[in-house]
């Protein structure tokens, strides 16, 4: 039997020629710091050192390691943290942490090479970018990674201890952080899902007997809905649990289906044709998914077209008629265009995963989820269990971005299988599943007409949006245009175009980025036609006080004041500067509560929220530490467990604003209790009075529940829904009643200024620099908020330039179901990003802070498109703005 040396110890290698090193490391040796993500060598999460050289362990046959030395992330800095690990911690070069072990392994190899050749010289951004070009981070922690690697190489972390701004950073840089995919119980089985290979069919019989007959198969269950209809390729049909994945895969291949094919229709264009087959008949409409963060309102629904949802319109007829007249009169100020945005996949690096285990009548499920508490409620309801019998755990979550906020197939299948098998079952989606059936931001076609008045005011706007929602509904894009740039009249109509594609899902500011891509380009065009500075025009039209402060900041930026490029350039490389605005709603979750306790002299804060990389552990630790005058790492934060006091889901940018106020209340109560029980008060003038009191305190605890906000007093600060009149109030009431979400006063805002360079020969767009101004109140965890801000910009760059789901229009297969064809930004695509926080505007919220995650990505894609317009004189109306589209746009201009 052959062996390898791994982290200094000898380990046997399996004889199976198909065994891959990553599986031996993770499953055989339980070294779970090494992650399996793309399975094709492009993301780097599985990188290990083979005789000192970084290699992709997801592609390496295990036998190839025979006689060699393998080092995983666990073996790096085993005795003492490596300078690269400390630098990653200090520079917050991580968010969800799932890609971090791979980056650490590659970066330490680069560090050693660099030191050997260059000593403590500082490597350039280009050198770091090239060295780490085989690694992808979906949170977009690249800014911190650049800084960390440069600082480590420069010797700044040699022999120095660090206290990271992110409280769990140490666990993430060493590979110790356990994600759902890393959970392994004794006797755990592997679950695999059989999925539909056709886009539309009625399955009349699922014969599980052949699967059950295969040795090693312990359970097989049907996952079909009651009507037996599958409506997209990849729809779940059945699931099997077996002793290993290979056996489970063989078992699902043996399942026999009897089915009746049904006519299918795929995509935005075909599904709108009058003779298109209908995806949901009246009786099955409730089976459609939901692409928004809240429940939807009623809307007309005919065939595959659901809409118009036009409640946010205002004098719609007037808007239409004014724009019609302007069109007839050939008003040069009228701008009309159709914009198209592509489908964006969440691309969480940790796939959707669940591990279910029954102990008697109690169920514990580890789930990669954004909502431990809510999910436990959903599970209890679906499986008719008492709430206190269901426990959901998510210690660390490798990204979510909106796709992990509900009860998903991975969880249902794991529970069903665990129940049937009477054994723990793990279900982990493969990359093909992750990039096809776990939801997405729907593509959209947006017809927009914007009419300024002769006096330079915004007179009328019409905006019709058709969203490519697949087997789902409830998109809101056009409606979001109501809450920015007040006009005399607006017609805003949203349509869902349903087809035989997987259902869309909420994705970071659902509807926001596509709406902004259309609206912010229309405003930019208006400024060009009116010959007004685009920022000044926004300041004229936009009444929101948060954004008005950001416009002043943007007007003062050198890159804006000195811009002179313009479309008169003729060379190969052309530069341009663009601006765009964005907003998101300030959302908090009523009922959010937290317990803050002293246990053995140590502060412990507990709430059933979760950290998917946004940094809520740290926000809570900082808030408690700040109140007691101690260090954040001295506070233990317990989250990621539904048994803790009810906490908020991580969606709608709601966590910060939901947890800080109850934390402050609990802290206040706890302080009073500590003082009451104190035998001796600290000496006057003590540096750390609370530290002394805490050390002497008996175990005590206090609870805080999220209170209502106080009434805002600052001018112009009110609920944006109030600006939308009666329908806004109804909408707010519905969100609270049916989705347990409160929409507060004040509007989280972002204004971004972007500089690009366009290579007119190769169609390549390089984003040179981004200035992102963000108003989300007081910043509770500055380094982490900065990571969120830069990561949001990087996701926005992906949305603008690279990312598109492609499908086969005939069969309904998703073709971009791998990370080579679905292209997320890499480190070398990251521009210099300047983050400006304007911390005013939310004084009516206890603590003064609201969430940042969504608003920060809304303006990026239109700002890039506006910069491209500035550079080449052509407006790109379709995302992603690929080389193909750039050369086509330039050809059209030279042909014209």
């Amino acid at each position: 039997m052959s062996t390898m040396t791994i982290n200094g110890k000898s380990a046997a290698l399996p004889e199976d020629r198909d065994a891959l090193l990553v599986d031996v490391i993770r499953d055989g040796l339980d070294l779970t710091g090494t992650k399996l993500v793309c399975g094709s060598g492009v993301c780097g999460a599985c990188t290990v050192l083979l005789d000192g050289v970084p290699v992709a362990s997801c592609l390496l046959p295990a036998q190839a390691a025979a006689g060699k030395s393998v080092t995983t992330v666990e073996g790096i800095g085993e005795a003492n943290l490596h300078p690269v690990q400390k630098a990653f911690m200090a520079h917050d070069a991580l968010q969800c942490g799932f890609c971090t072990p791979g980056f650490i392994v590659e970066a330490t190899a680069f560090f050693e090479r660099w030191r050997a050749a260059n000593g403590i010289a500082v490597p350039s951004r280009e050198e770091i970018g090239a060295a780490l070009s085989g690694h992808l981070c979906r949170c977009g922690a690249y800014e911190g990674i650049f800084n960390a690697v440069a600082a480590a190489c420069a010797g700044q972390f040699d022999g120095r201890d660090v206290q990271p701004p992110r409280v769990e950073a140490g666990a993430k840089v060493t590979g110790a952080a356990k994600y759902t995919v890393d959970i392994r119980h004794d006797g755990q089985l592997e679950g695999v899902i059989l999925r539909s290979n056709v886009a539309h069919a009625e399955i009349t019989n699922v014969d599980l007997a052949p699967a059950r007959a295969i040795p090693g198969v312990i359970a097989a269950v049907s996952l079909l809905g009651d009507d037996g209809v599958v409506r997209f390729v990849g729809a779940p049909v059945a699931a099997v649990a077996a002793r290993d994945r290979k056996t489970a895969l063989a078992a699902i291949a043996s399942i026999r289906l009897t089915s009746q094919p049904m006519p299918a229709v795929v995509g935005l264009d075909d599904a709108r044709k009058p003779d298109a087959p209908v995806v949901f008949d009246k009786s099955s409409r409730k089976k459609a998914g939901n692409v928004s963060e809240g429940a939807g309102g009623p809307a007309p629904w005919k065939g595959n077209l659901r809409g118009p949802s036009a409640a946010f319109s205002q004098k719609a007829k007037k808007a239409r008629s004014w724009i019609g007249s302007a069109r007839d009169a050939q008003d040069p100020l009228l701008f009309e265009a159709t914009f198209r945005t592509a489908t964006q996949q969440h691309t969480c690096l940790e796939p959707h995963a669940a591990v279910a285990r029954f102990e008697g009548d109690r169920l514990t499920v580890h789930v990669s989820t954004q909502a431990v508490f809510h999910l436990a409620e959903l599970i209890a309801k679906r499986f008719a269990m008492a709430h206190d019998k269901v426990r959901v755990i998510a210690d660390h979550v490798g990204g979510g971005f909106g796709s992990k906020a509900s009860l998903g197939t991975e969880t249902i299948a794991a529970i069903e299988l665990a129940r049937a098998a009477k054994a723990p079952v793990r279900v982990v989606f493969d990359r093909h599943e992750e990039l096809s059936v776990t939801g997405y931001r729907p593509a959209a076609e947006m017809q927009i007409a914007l009419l300024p008045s002769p006096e330079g005011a915004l007179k009328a706007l019409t905006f019709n949006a058709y969203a490519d929602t697949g087997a789902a509904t409830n998109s809101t894009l056009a409606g979001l245009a109501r809450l920015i740039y007040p006009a005399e009249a607006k017609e805003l109509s949203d349509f869902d175009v349903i087809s035989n594609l997987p259902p869309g899902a909420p994705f970071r500011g659902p509807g926001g980025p596509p709406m902004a891509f259309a609206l912010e380009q229309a405003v930019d065009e208006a400024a060009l036609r009116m010959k007004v500075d685009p920022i000044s025009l926004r300041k004229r039209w936009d009444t929101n006080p948060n954004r008005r402060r950001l416009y002043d900041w943007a007007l003062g930026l050198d890159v804006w004041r000195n811009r002179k490029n313009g479309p008169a350039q003729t060379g190969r490389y052309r530069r341009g500067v663009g601006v765009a605005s964005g907003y998101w709603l300030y959302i908090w979750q009523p009922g959010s509560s937290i317990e803050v306790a002293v246990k053995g002299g140590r502060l412990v804060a507990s709430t059933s929220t979760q950290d998917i990389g946004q940094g809520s552990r740290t926000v809570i630790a900082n808030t408690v530490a700040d109140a007691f005058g101690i260090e954040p790492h001295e506070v233990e934060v317990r989250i990621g467990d539904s048994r803790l006091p009810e906490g908020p889901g991580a969606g709608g940018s709601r966590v910060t604003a939901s947890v800080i106020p109850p934390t402050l209340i609990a802290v206040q109560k706890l302080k009073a209790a500590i003082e009451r029980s104190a035998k001796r008060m600290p000496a006057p003038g003590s540096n750390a009075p609370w530290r002394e009191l805490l050390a002497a305190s008996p175990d005590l605890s206090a609870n805080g529940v999220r209170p209502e906000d106080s009434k805002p007093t600052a001018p112009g600060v009110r609920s944006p829904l109030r600006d939308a009149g009666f329908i806004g109030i109804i909408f707010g009431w519905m969100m609270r009643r049916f989705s347990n979400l409160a929409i507060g006063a004040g509007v989280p805002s972002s204004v971004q200024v972007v500089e690009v360079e366009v290579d007119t020969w190769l169609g390549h767009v390089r984003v040179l620099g981004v200035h992102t101004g963000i108003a989300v109140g007081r910043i509770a965890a500055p380094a982490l908020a900065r990571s969120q801000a830069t990561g949001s910009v990087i996701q926005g760059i992906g949305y603008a330039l690279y990312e598109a789901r492609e499908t086969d229009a005939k069969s309904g297969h998703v073709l971009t179901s791998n990370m080579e064809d679905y292209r997320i930004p890499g480190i070398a695509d990251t521009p210099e990003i300047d983050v400006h926080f304007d911390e005013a505007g939310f004084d009516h919220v206890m603590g003064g802070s609201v969430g940042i995650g969504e608003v920060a990505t809304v303006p990026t894609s239109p700002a890039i498109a506006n910069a491209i317009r500035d550079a080449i004189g052509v407006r790109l109306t379709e995302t992603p703005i690929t080389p193909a589209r750039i050369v086509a746009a330039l050809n059209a201009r030279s042909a014209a």
Partner: protein
Amino acid sequence: MSEAATMTAAGEFRAAGTDLSERRRTGVSKGPVVDLVLPGDDGIVWGADGAATIGAFATIATIAADTRIKDAYPGVAATALGLATPQIRHLATLGGNLAQRSRCWYYRNPHIACLKKGGSDCPARAGNHLYGVAFDLGPCVAPHPSSMAAALLAYEATVSTDRRKALSIAELLGNGSDGRADHALQAGETIRSIVLPTPLQGERALYKRAISRSYAEWPLVEICARAVIADGAFRFVRIAAGGIAPVPLRLQAAEAALEGRPPTEATIANAAKLAATGAKPLPMTGYKLDLLDGLVRDLLGALAK
């Protein structure tokens, strides 16, 4: 990227496995695997004439980093450095890179039939061929995935197998008319080494791929260009392009338009236009000809400087 050679009755060959492992995981490749363990075939040997012979199992990273290769065959070294990711280049072999299977998203999907998987037609032709060929030379519309093959074509390198010597790249890969295969090796035949010619006096070479991001992306179009410029004129030009056809192509019309002419912007622009000679783009791939034009201008312009 590096499954070497081809299938035998005994199974599918595997070198480093960077292509094959992915296809095994997804189920596109089933059946037995035959590991190619041929010690001694991983080095670079230099002849007295200054020509290199590269063993089939030399890794892409080895080729990219070899100072003598960088000096004598800069186009080969630059291509090696420009493909895949560092953690793949450290494993993938040159032989495997030449014999890897198509990267077409239909071929790689285990649930879709296609010519390369024994099916009767190419679903990409009538379907989504965004990254397909712009020179439609055969029934399959996927471009050949090997960047190294394009570079070696520019160098007029030859390939030795365990059975045959001095195969041209065209003989190794065929002319693109057979949509079922990615190369023209016989069943059970394996690549052993790649023989490069003696570098010409004063030749220079460059490689570049057009992609949307900065790194780690399959080329939309790529070219490797060599030139000797002397006495105020292009004396020798070889341009090979990948990403545009079922096999890498020499851009002979562009080469002819350059050889003997002064290295001016006008000459190069004219040659760049001629790069598309013989092209037959598909409905979704016309943009590749613009990128091809841009790449020829870019690289020949840089060589002329």
